[in-house]
């Protein structure tokens, strides 16, 4: 097949669109960055793409709570053709396509009700809110992949070091029932852990006090994947805070960053299946 087309949404304070596009380019996809208003205005049709991406940033400055104003826009505002964007997204998913949301993008996905969507009614069931530390923090953490979650994004990954950079990443679930469903269906695909992969709740290994130590989530199809840490900020070995020592200790270490694997995975998955 031709190259996989990946659409990266920007505008309104989203600010990680370029590194996200680079991630897909490095993974061999065709990455295009488009302003959300160009989708609403009908210049861009999301159905022309295989992957829809919501990058990190500070949409509307996190006013009214992170991701809130932009998710309201995506969920409720009508596009120029009279359809709702949300309806377009549902059609996109029915076609078996993929959605990735990182950090602020993950916040949009949960606030729109796209994740985890246990009820199937596209209603908000979890939230991401102010860190227990009360602070925005930029630090590298580790996440453990839930081997029983089947999303193609995480194929072949076990423990992943990545930076988190957020003030509102604390995962809270609406009630015990939903929490149990998340666990039962193995939707909590990424958990904060120590360097060896032991899942822990201790700060700062769990940087925000997230319930279930949850760093990332999928829906039950595995088509929608959202996470707080930034894989697009670890495309190169030289993004890692300890790269200089790692090169000394492992002279043959790859110059590729571990975060790139997520993008390679999904692009390869789509290539294989289309």
């Amino acid at each position, binding site marked *: 097949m031709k190259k996989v087309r990946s659409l990266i949404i*920007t505008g*309104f*304070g989203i*600010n*990680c669109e*370029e*590194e996200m596009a*680079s991630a897909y*380019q490095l993974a061999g996809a065709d990455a295009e960055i488009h*302003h959300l*208003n*160009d989708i609403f*205005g009908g210049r861009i049709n999301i159905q022309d793409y295989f992957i829809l991406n919501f990058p990190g*940033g*500070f949409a*509307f*400055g996190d*006013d*009214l*709570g992170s991701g*809130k*104003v932009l998710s*309201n*826009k995506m969920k*409720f505002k*009508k596009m120029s053709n009279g359809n709702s964007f949300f309806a377009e997204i549902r059609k996109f998913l029915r076609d078996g396509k993929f959605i990735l949301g990182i950090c602020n993008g993950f916040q949009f996905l949960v*606030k729109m009700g796209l994740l985890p969507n246990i009820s199937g009614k596209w209603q*908000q069931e*979890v*939230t991401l*809110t*102010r860190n*227990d530390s*009360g*602070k*925005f*923090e*930029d*630090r*590298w953490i580790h996440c453990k992949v839930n081997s029983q979650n089947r999303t193609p994004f995480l194929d072949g990954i076990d423990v992943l070091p990545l*930076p988190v*950079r957020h003030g509102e990443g604390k995962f*809270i*679930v*609406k009630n015990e029932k939903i929490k149990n469903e998340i666990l039962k269906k193995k939707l909590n695909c990424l958990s904060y852990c120590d360097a060896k992969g032991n899942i822990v709740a201790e700060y700062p290994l769990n940087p925000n*006090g997230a319930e279930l130590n949850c760093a990332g989530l999928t829906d039950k199809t595995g088509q929608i994947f959202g996470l707080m840490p*930034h894989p697009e*900020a*670890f495309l*190169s070995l*030289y*993004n890692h*805070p*300890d*790269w*200089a*020592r790692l090169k*000394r*200790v492992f002279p043959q270490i790859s*110059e590729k960053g571990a975060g790139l694997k997520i993008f390679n995975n999904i692009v390869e998955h789509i290539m294989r299946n289309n």
Partner: protein
Amino acid sequence: MRNQIQLLLKNEIKDVLGEKVQQDAADFFQIDTGKVKTSKIYNVLFDLSQPELERFANLGLKDEMIHHVYINELFHDPFFQTFLLVAKLPGVTDDEGISAQKTLNDILELQLDVKTQHIYSNDLFLFEKALSHKNLQTLAENLLGNKLIHHFEFGEFTGIIDYLPEVKISSKEMVSFIDLNVSDKELLELSKRMLLSLNLEEMKAIQSYFLRSDVIQKRHKMELPTKPTDCELEVLAQTWSEHCKHKEFAATIHYEDRETGETETINSLFQTYIRKSTEIIKKRLEKAGNDWLLKIFSDNAGVVKIDDNSVFVWKVETHNSPSAIDPYGGAITGILGNNRDPLGTGIGGGKLLFNTDVLCFAPPNFKKKLLPGQLHPRRIFNGVRHGIEDGGNKSGIPTVNGSIIFDERYSGKPLVYCGTGGVMPIQFNGKNSWEKKIENGNLIVMAGGRVGKDGIHGATFSSAEIDEHSPQSAVQIGSPITQKLLADFLQEAAEKGLIKCSTDNGAGGLSSSIGELAEISGGAIVHLEKVPLKYPHLKPWEIFVSESQERMTLVVKKANLIALQKLAKRREVEISSIGEFTDNGFLDVQFAGKRCAYLDMEFLHDGVPKKIMKAVWEKPQFKEPSFSKKLDYNEILFKLMGSLNICSRESVIRQYDHEVKGKTIIKPLMGEKAKTPQDAAVMRINFQNYIGIAISNGICPKFGDLDPYQMSAGAFDEAIRQIIAVGGKLPDPNSNRFWSVNDNFCVPDSAYDPVSNPDGKLKLAKLVQMNQALFDMATFFNIPMTSGKDSMKNDFKAGNVKISVPPTILYSMTAKIDDVRRTITSDFKAANDLIYQIGKTYDELGASEFYNLFGELGANVPKVRKENAKVIYQKMMLANEQNLIESCHDISDGGMAVAVCESAIGTNFGVELELSELQNLSLNAILFSESHSRFIVSIDQKNKKIFEQIFADDCTLIGKINSSKNLQIHFQKKKVIDMEMRELEQVWSNGLS
């Protein structure tokens, strides 16, 4: 009709903010608040039906996982005995209110006006304890708000909040005329009354301009009387302000050096030292066939060439006075304002790559009684830090580099240096991106935020004009989201070739931006009624000089206006065509057809009389202290590591996003535990290759007390050596690798006055010497200034007390890195690696952190020996080319002992040093002297021979990395330091908490 919506956290949700308020109230003010409950109130002035209101509240505002929502009734529970409301004063930026308006339109599919404020947000705090009026006022003014921007209500909660910060102005949009044919005394009074800040000579220059017959004749034709308008005087005052015209750096200075007996007349510090050094370097570069120095001292920022595809644009500014009165607002407007400098350079629309912020504060544990209007240093620190966090993080610009310096003399005015670098393609649509070209007939387009009374006459706004509905104008809060949209739009417009060029609207507003651009074409005509306002009834002159933030002025070809307007609409950025550029030599400002100003451009820009100042240098006398032989070096090192100027900045650094964009290669903290402090930041510029930029800063005001020349030279050297430390290569006229400096002077008032500033001549002499050092260092190393800034009045006055900053110079430096993969970090890499000191230590403990521990200043200032430094740096480059250096850390505050500790911190290694090789010096000097141009380097043992061949006498083997987890230092067969690294790491990590 007003509707009120309140959002309250559910009981089972941790109220993180409330807990922090409770903790801070106890820690900082010893106030026991009991449990604190926080909530948000939105006052909605749009006319909405009940179902609309409910839909908006429940879908638009509430996060149903965590909130309860109350509509037109407020949560009221007798458990909470007192309350505090923090609302904004009229006219203060309320982004949350604006965002709520936008979401209201989206959810209800309405087309309400969201450009002016109709939803006002405020914060309500409920306290369990019955707090006294005094305690509530303390919390209001010193913890949760600032009376310059907030309205407070507090006491026992009745469940009703009525306050609305609507702006209402009753004045008319009129122009008044001012009689200048008055006595000198009256001229000065006029300057004072109108807050023009012009001196008598300047007022007289203006007076005689309006008496010129050619001027009278021209004005007559324009139907203007001979008397100037209020707008004209305001424009002249703004254009001639110290901020814009740098009158002291342009002054003629009679300099007398009583140490040597020589006298000299310096015709402008800027021309003589700063500009001249760069011109000399430029000539050398041109001679060698180099073409990377593209733009110096013009436009908003300097420009250098990275390679054939891209240019680097960068600027460092200060925002000291605003940060002194409103630390958060001052810092955030400083960052955002400085971002607009590289953004508005040349055509504009560059991509911003990084921020760098250097801060000078008084110690956070400051104990002296505060003067009226003086904020506590801890509060300034927290507020400024928060402003930098929001300014950078919310704009998606990584804050990659910085420095914090503590000295009690910054308790009146903190120094807040904000720097930003950006990258532009070398051309946009076939036009050189860094050039500004404007022709007669090009349109003036204002883009971004709207205009209010913000920043008009700064903090001196007359109290007589203020009532409860007057917009506050003294301080401003930046809106990163407004600016982010503007920046994205500008980049897109530049790429599409829709703008000819652009500039920032910062200090001086439209008056400044249009006034400066009009110099290129030779004139401009402006229609102020076309400028969109935040609220009605601003006077024309107010519209013209307002400093409302997040605005740019764009220059647009008439043929492109429609396309630009369409793009702006799609990007939700407001733009307005407000006039056009001309070539008739006049700045012509009108409001609805009525002329408000008609000024000769030549007089406007060159008419300001030159200042004449006097500087006298007398060498101060200092003495070295004496010490007993029996010092406990374990204790000294422990104290040094925990001292304010040395300890870890991690708590600050972690709150800045320093890696958004994914291009930060050397971050502020690196190594196995990501704790080891680094010397310079390194960024790559794209994902296609490994070309990068190193960013450093040199600043050491403490040495200025002993010797201002050596202080300035030392700061310059520090900036260079940090770049060498990470693997940079020295400037070389034969290579096309750019280096660039921004010089940034922040000094106390240096204009002599027998009463108010009796030591002004000495202060000015220090400034002269700082400039001389700049010239000597720049020309010696071939590092050009590409831009700079001076801030001349860093004094805080209350009654008879004056707190002046020590003369401070910051050199912010950048250099191209050929391959970021070959840069070097400061953390030790492996056990058994050898540790060397590179460069020589001298008995130079003057103003050291070591002396500071004992309250001593000393006399022996560290001197820069630039010829030696260059040799050392060249050897470092040679060693790097052969990949010999495993870690490198520059030696500065605290000397060699501290540098070694810092390289070991955050690793799992210990260190053993044997210092007897350095025995011609005292142990104090060996360990703690802060001599310049030195490094701590570690290498793999196998490279010992070749390494020592390169460095010869310039390196001293001082020890070895081991796996012991201890630091042991031996000197003359004695163990002088024996400590666990863990304890050093701990005290270093907790120094700011």
